[in-house]
């Protein structure tokens, strides 16, 4: 009787506070317990980053969840997210990094497409040569593709190599779909030799707004003078689309050098002033921004 009372008193007077580290360990146990529901495990995963690199056993437990194709995909994705969050604590994550990368490479060929995409995304952003090779192989041989072509192109743009340019140019010529064409154009945006491609697409009024926008941005980067010349023509062309006029005005308004100066004259100002009052909402806004740059 006395012992019980003592225990109760002790518990009242000194409640055990849950430190962040303790919470993480409790959550870790829940997250890696296959007998818990996926919902419980996923909720617990958000508290796990702190515990991931405490010791190798913890790391391997989370990596095992990620690698295990028998685990529910949402739980595996939650494990991946925990590892990504943990990776932001770089100093403590450093010892875990090699195993993390090895696991990502393994699951890059996972049966689940979302697992593959997430893994290849992380690797591509890390400029991982293994991932780059896989992505290029998939674009060259579609039956080996691990991702849709538009996603593969997007990920390759994290570390553009000349090899990717050739594939991207081909994709622009013969796109498997419209979004793949857009991603291919974006990837080519740093390729000076592709300037004629962008000029052609920017001028083509039948092209989609997205393609013309990407072309405008790319040309602005590769050959600003050419872009400013085209932008001027687009703004002065009353038959061209509002959207691309707005984009062209923005191109002229947001450069910080003087390359656009040669293409700014009273004719252009007059038209922009007209657009400021008569244009669509987006054109008006871009017109105001442009005129404000020149103190008008």
């Amino acid at each position, binding site marked *: 009787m006395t012992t019980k009372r003592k225990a109760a008193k002790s518990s009242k007077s000194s409640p055990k506070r849950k430190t*962040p*580290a303790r919470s993480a360990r409790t959550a870790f146990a829940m997250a890696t317990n296959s007998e818990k529901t996926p919902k419980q495990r996923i909720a617990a*995963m*958000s*508290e796990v*980053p*702190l515990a991931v690199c405490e010791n190798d056993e913890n790391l391997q437990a989370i990596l095992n969840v990620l690698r295990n194709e028998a685990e529910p995909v*949402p739980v595996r*994705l939650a494990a991946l*997210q925990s590892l*990504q*969050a*943990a*990776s*932001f*604590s*770089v*100093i403590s994550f*450093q010892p875990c990094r090699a195993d993390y990368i090895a696991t990502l490479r393994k699951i890059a060929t996972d049966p689940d497409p979302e697992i593959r*995409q997430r893994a290849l*995304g*992380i690797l591509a*952003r*890390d400029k991982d040569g293994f991932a780059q090779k896989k992505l290029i192989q998939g674009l060259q041989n579609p039956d080996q593709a691990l991702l*849709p072509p*538009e*996603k593969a192109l*997007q990920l390759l*743009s*994290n570390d*553009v190599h000349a090899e990717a340019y050739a594939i991207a140019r081909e994709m622009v010529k013969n796109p498997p779909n419209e*979004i793949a064409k857009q*991603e291919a154009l*974006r*990837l080519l*945006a*740093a390729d000076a030799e592709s300037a004629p491609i962008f000029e052609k697409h920017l001028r083509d009024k039948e092209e989609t*707004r*997205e393609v013309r*926008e990407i072309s*405008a*941005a*790319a040309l*602005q*980067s590769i050959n600003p003078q050419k872009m400013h010349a085209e932008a001027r023509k687009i703004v002065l062309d009353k038959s061209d689309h*509002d*959207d*691309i006029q*707005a*984009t062209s*005005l*923005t191109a002229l308004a*947001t*450069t*910080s050098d003087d390359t656009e100066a040669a293409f700014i004259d009273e004719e252009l100002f007059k038209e922009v002033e007209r657009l400021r009052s008569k244009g669509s909402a*987006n*054109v008006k*806004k*871009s017109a105001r*921004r442009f005129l404000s740059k020149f103190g008008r």
Partner: protein
Amino acid sequence: MNVELEINNSASADARFVSWAPSPCRIRMTNPAGAPGPQVNVTLTCVSASASAGLVVFRRNPTGAFSSSITLPVPVSGATVPFFVAGRFGRPSVNNNDVKIEARAGTTLIGGIKLMVRIRKDANSLTAAERDRFVNAFAKLNNQGAGRFVDFRNMHTLVSSPQAHGAPGFLPWHRAYLLDLERELQAIDPSVALPYWRFDKPAPRLFTRDFMGVSNAVGRVQFTAGHPFIFWTTDGVQGINRIPLNNWAPTTQAAPGARTEAATLALGAQFSGFRTMEGNPHGTAHTVWDGSISDIPTAAKDPLFFLLHCNVDRLWAKWQRQNARFNPAQAGSFSGSGSNPIGHNLPDTMWPWNGITGGSRPPTAPGGALAGSPCVNAPGAQPMVRDTFDFQGSVSAGSRLGFDYDDVALA
């Protein structure tokens, strides 16, 4: 009779910005014609451009209560008289110069000055004009990949990440990083303050095509026609990659799994406990997305990164105020100094602003010294970790960093 007023003790219009922390100001007689004696009692009051515009309060001395007006004896000799001005908490400006201080001798207006109460706000609450000014300035800083933003992108890579992550210097480093970027934005448009993404709440006005964009099916962020971010370019590639994971809708839901503000502030009164927020909510807010922002090597390519970290910094600021942790020398304000990795101890200068490369520092140091400000002197060109703590000048007025948050009052 005329008087001249200076904000932040500067005649420059670039210095006419205040926050919640008191700014040193001064007044002097420039034309004493009509003065009844050797000094004139001049009353300063604040006029706000509208009910939603900024308001300021005054005090005579470095400490003490503020009031909505102040009367100062101003000598006709032209000698300056000091006083202090601060934004009235809860009344930040919405436009530059929407606050005016008027000086009167009796009922006669004898001088005035316009200024701005420039405050970091919830990005979801910005007016369209505030949003557009911020976006325009940021796009100019990027300048389609050729602008100064290149340095900010290159400050946050895998190689440099031990300088800024996984150790106690995480919060101080990112505070300096944001401040440096914000000052560069203010050099383009001084009315701009960095807004924050309150990731533990839905943000319907932030994730729109007019602001931070909406993702397409492959994670490419889309904007309205003519939006300056259409030209956003990093590493030679145009565009922003970002898509919410698991069908999460940031316009109607908080970031899934991200620790709430209340839970973050309850991580404890000691820095050693609070700094675990680096994992959650900070790491969680990064990884609820797929795309550049979800990994350290590429996170800073996405402009949303800076709004995310502005909220992280706001949480630190709020925790500091809640626990009176502005003095880095005070136990509990920091942890492990002296035994932390390089760049994470109080007296350490921080890379890249210290320009130190090689050895335990990265091989290059992009960007040079930390940007100065026309309003304040701190934290200096090569700040130490300790220089980031007293952002309101609560411990030492000279430590004021020139920023404040809309919901973190003066301590």
